[in-house]
């Protein structure tokens, strides 16, 4: 069973690795640092602008709603996951931490929405980074 044609096919496909190009390394880094920029440097203008506007607006709305920005922590699992989500926003997260924003106590319901907006903006940027990478390696037009 281990040597069936289907298994061999899967193994052969896994062995075909994508060549490492400059773009396949630079694009994910740029896309993470500046949401949407990974698409923009590959001349996907409309997609890049839409991603940038969506992710940046969501992140800024989260801050305006007094959402909490998680710091690196080793405590509660939800706090760790919150940090991972926030970090996805890349440059936005770095700037926010540098300006010491998002550290207030959550005093009203919308602040909790804000926290979720911040996390989801980061998670959406992770998806955007993966998409930009797929374009860079030619897996997606």
């Amino acid at each position, binding site marked *: 069973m281990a040597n069936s044609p289907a298994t061999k096919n899967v193994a052969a496909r896994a062995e075909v690795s994508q060549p490492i190009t400059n773009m396949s390394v630079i694009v994910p880094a740029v896309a993470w640092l500046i949401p949407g920029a990974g698409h923009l440097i590959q001349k996907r203008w409309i997609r890049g602008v839409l991603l940038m506007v969506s992710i940046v607006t*969501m992140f800024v*709305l989260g801050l*305006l709603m007094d959402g909490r920005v998680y710091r690196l922590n080793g405590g509660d699992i939800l706090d760790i996951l919150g940090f991972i989500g926030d970090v996805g926003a890349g440059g936005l997260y770095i700037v926010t931490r540098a300006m010491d924003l998002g550290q207030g106590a959550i005093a009203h319901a919308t602040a909790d*929405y804000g926290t979720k*907006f911040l996390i989801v*903006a980061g998670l959406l940027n992770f998806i*955007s980074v*993966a998409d930009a990478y797929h374009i860079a390696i030619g897996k997606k037009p």
Partner: protein
Amino acid sequence: MTLELSHFSAALLFSIFASVVFGITQRSATRDMVRYGLYCFALFLGGVLLAGWVMWLLRH
């Protein structure tokens, strides 16, 4: 400055932005991106309205 949105308007904004990203990243052709984005938006909004009515029924 603190922005205080209602639950519905926050969910609406969330749906719009998430749908845009899902549409662009999960499909390859432009037409499919638009269709999938709209589909996600409809599901998000439909889910919000449905959950709202379910909670109303549970309360009454």
